[in-house]
Each structure stands twice: as structure tokens, then as C-alpha cells.
């Protein structure tokens, strides 16, 4: 069973990045009546979204976030030992986007860099891998980048996904520290591939190389199945992570959930008996940005941060795969959080 405690890692900073182009669901959406938009917005909670457009990739957003992060943390690029890029919207089928970003960010050639192909659950997995690499010894600093451009792979005429998706990138700076002085992090990571077709882009990969129908290159979602999956899987993975850490649900300051859909998130909070004040929402302004919605909400979720102690955060991703996972981590008062906008050029 994939349950793990990792010692000796600290978050030095988290930056998020979104495109500057804002799409207002009420005023910019076409093909919907006002009532339809109002109904979808009421349910999903998405009033506006940030759109990458045709020329901006998740790597561009992650690069912007990472450059700001390196600057604000004072990290020299050549001090980074590992780069993990978590994305399902890569620049190319090959090479790995992490390799492209290694050179764009000016990281040393002595740096390990690789992609992780996970979506909604990706942040917990990325942090786990980063923490594991640092705790293994030898490596001192790692960047975990997580970016997606779901609005680019959604067919806006498909009502199960339209008005929902936005684009975002993020960068998280992890550093190896003395395990004696820090609280261990707890991770629980799970998979149920039997639902792989419930959230899928069927075309463009090697299973279906060049489909004629354009829609095959866009995401298709079975909403009811994803809803069922979410309410069945999220509460237990949170409880399992609390149990692993020996904590109660009240010990956690914030539950930062993947921003899937306001309706689902409120249902989950209620089901788990977690006050809504502990479950920040950023859907209203950014939409569902896939897995990067977790670091985006960490940065933009208006968390109250005491100056004298770390925040205990339950970071939870769930969705495409189907894959889900939780990371219970500490965010120290010295960790730098920031947000940047990436200027759309076209």
C-alpha cells in the first residue's frame, strides 16, 4: 500500500502563475443562454477563468512561476539539483518538458530533470517524489513544477466541461533539512485505472495516433462517474493520511483540495465534517486548473499564516487516471508565497 512518511524536507516557497487573459463566463461565453450560464456557475462556482490561448503552454506558466520563485528565495539557478515537472499538457510528446525547462531556467546540467504524467492528483505525487529525492541524501534542492492548460484541451461546445477549465502553472521550492528539527510529512497515494476512460483525451497519443475527428483531441469527461469517484475516494484518503500522521482532522489548519467543482467540494467538506473555512476555494476566479489548482489555492486561497508556527496543510488531488493522493505537510512561516501573471502575447 502506498503510504509513506518522509522526513527532512522543507518548503522554501511556492509561486503560482496564470495567463493575463481573463475570460468572464457571464459576458464572454457564447452558445449559452444567460440562464444556462447562471446555472452552471451556481453549480461549479466558476465566474471567470484565465486562458492560455493557442500560444502559451503549461511550461511557460511554470517557467514564470519558477523564475519569480528563484528570485524571491534568493536561490541561484545552479544550486538546484532536481527539477520535477508534473503535467499532462506537455510541450511535446518528446522530449520531456522538464528537459526544456532545465535549459530555459538556466539550471545546471548536473541537475536531474524528468516529467511526471499525472493531472489532478499530481501535486501530492510531485511533492512526494521531491521529498523522497531530498531525503535520500546527496541532493539539497529541488523544484517541483506543476502546470496544466486544461482550457486548451477542452472543447468549449462540450457542455460537460465548458465554462469550467482555466490554465495555471506553479513552482515549489523544496530543500533538504535536518530531520531532527522538522515534522515528518505523510503521503497516501492511490490509483484505480478501471476508470481511465472517465476523464480522457483519446486521440493524439500512440493508441490513436491521428484521428480525423478534432474532438478526439479534446478531453471527454463522464461527470457522474467522476462525482462518484470523488465522494467515494477523497474522504478515506484524507482519513488514512491523518491516521498515518497520528493526527485528528481538527489538527489540520487547511484542507487544500483540487478545485474540481464547487458543488463536489462543498459536498466533500460536509461529508467529512470539515468546516468550509478550512477548505479554501479559488474556483470563482480561476476555474478548475487541474492539479495545479492545489498550489494555486495554497498561494491565492487567503490562508491565515501565524508568524510563530508552521501551518499544517492537507493537500489533496483527485481525478484523471483515476488517481488520487494526499500530502500532509508543514508550511513554515518563513516560506515565501507569491503569484505572477504571464502576459498573453496573442
Amino acid at each position, binding site marked *: 500500500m502506498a503510504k509513506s512518511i518522509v522526513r527532512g524536507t522543507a518548503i522554501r516557497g511556492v509561486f503560482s502563475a496564470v495567463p493575463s487573459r481573463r475570460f468572464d463566463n457571464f459576458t464572454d461565453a457564447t452558445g449559452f443562454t444567460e440562464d444556462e450560464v447562471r446555472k452552471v456557475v451556481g453549480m461549479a462556482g466558476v465566474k471567470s477563468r484565465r486562458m492560455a490561448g493557442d500560444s502559451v503552454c503549461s511550461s511557460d506558466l511554470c517557467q514564470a512561476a519558477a523564475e519569480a520563485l528563484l528570485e524571491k528565495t534568493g536561490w541561484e539557478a545552479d544550486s538546484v539539483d532536481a527539477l520535477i515537472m508534473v503535467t499532462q499538457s506537455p510541450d511535446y510528446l518528446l522530449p520531456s518538458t522538464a528537459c526544456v525547462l532545465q535549459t530555459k531556467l538556466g539550471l545546471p546540467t548536473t541537475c536531474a530533470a524528468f516529467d511526471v504524467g499525472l493531472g489532478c492528483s499530481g501535486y501530492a505525487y510531485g511533492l512526494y517524489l521531491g521529498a523522497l529525492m531530498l531525503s535520500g541524501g546527496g541532493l539539497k534542492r529541488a523544484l517541483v513544477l506543476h502546470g496544466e492548460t486544461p482550457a486548451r484541451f477542452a472543447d468549449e461546445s462540450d457542455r460537460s466541461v465548458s465554462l469550467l477549465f482555466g490554465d495555471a502553472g506553479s513552482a515549489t521550492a523544496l530543500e533538504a533539512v535536518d530531520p531532527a528539527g522538522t515534522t515528518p510529512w505523510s503521503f497516501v497515494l492511490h490509483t484505480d485505472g478501471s476508470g481511465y476512460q472517465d476523464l480522457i483525451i483519446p486521440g493524439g497519443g500512440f493508441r490513436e495516433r491521428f484521428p480525423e475527428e478534432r474532438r478526439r483531441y479534446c478531453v471527454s469527461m463522464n461527470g457522474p462517474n467522476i*462525482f462518484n469517484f470523488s465522494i467515494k475516494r477523497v474522504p478515506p484518503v484524507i482519513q488514512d493520511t491523518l491516521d498515518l500522521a497520528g493526527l485528528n482532522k481538527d489538527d489540520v489548519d487547511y484542507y487544500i483540495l483540487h478545485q474540481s467543482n464547487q458543488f463536489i467540494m462543498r459536498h466533500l467538506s460536509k461529508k467529512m465534517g470539515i468546516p468550509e473555512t478550512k477548505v479554501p476555494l479559488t474556483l470563482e476566479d480561476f476555474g478548475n486548473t487541474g492539479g495545479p489548482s492545489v498550489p494555486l489555492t495554497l498561494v491565492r486561497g487567503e490562508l491565515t499564516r501565524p508568524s510563530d508556527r508552521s501551518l499544517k496543510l492537507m493537500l489533496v488531488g483527485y481525478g484523471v487516471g483515476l488517481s488520487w493522493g494526499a500530502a500532509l505537510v508543514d508550511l513554515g512561516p518563513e516560506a515565501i508565497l507569491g503569484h505572477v501573471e504571464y502576459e498573453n502575447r496573442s
Partner: protein
Amino acid sequence: MAKSSSEILAWVAEVFETPAEKIRPETRRDEIDAWDSLGILALMAKMDEDFHILLTDEEIQRLNSVRDICDVLREHDVKIDP
């Protein structure tokens, strides 16, 4: 769990935010405006919240009338008194 038939009809009316007098066992899905793709999610959420029932994909496909909803509830051991 036991519920009266009228309680279940009132519950369905609440799920779909529809006037109670419009909900009868024979009322079809296409007669309830709010019973669309979003309405199905609302129904699934209330099934979970009030009866601890997670509907399967097959069950969802079978739901075409209020009577079908009652049948699914019965299959999950919700007793509906006449």
C-alpha cells in the same frame, strides 16, 4: 430506513427544486426542467447525503422517472410505505 411515499416525493421535489405538486411517481425525467446533467449530480449528492447511497453508472442510466428513483431507493433497502 423507512419513508412514506409522500416523503419521498417531497424529497425528489427538493432535490430538483421543483414544486411538490408537480412530482408524482409517474412524472418523467423530461417533465422536470432541473433533471438535466447538473440535476443528476444534485440527485447523486442527496442520495449520498440522506441515504448513504452511491449510485452506479448503470443505475443512473436507468433513471427515467420518479418511479425509477423510488425503485433504486428500494433496491438499496430504503423501505417506502404506500
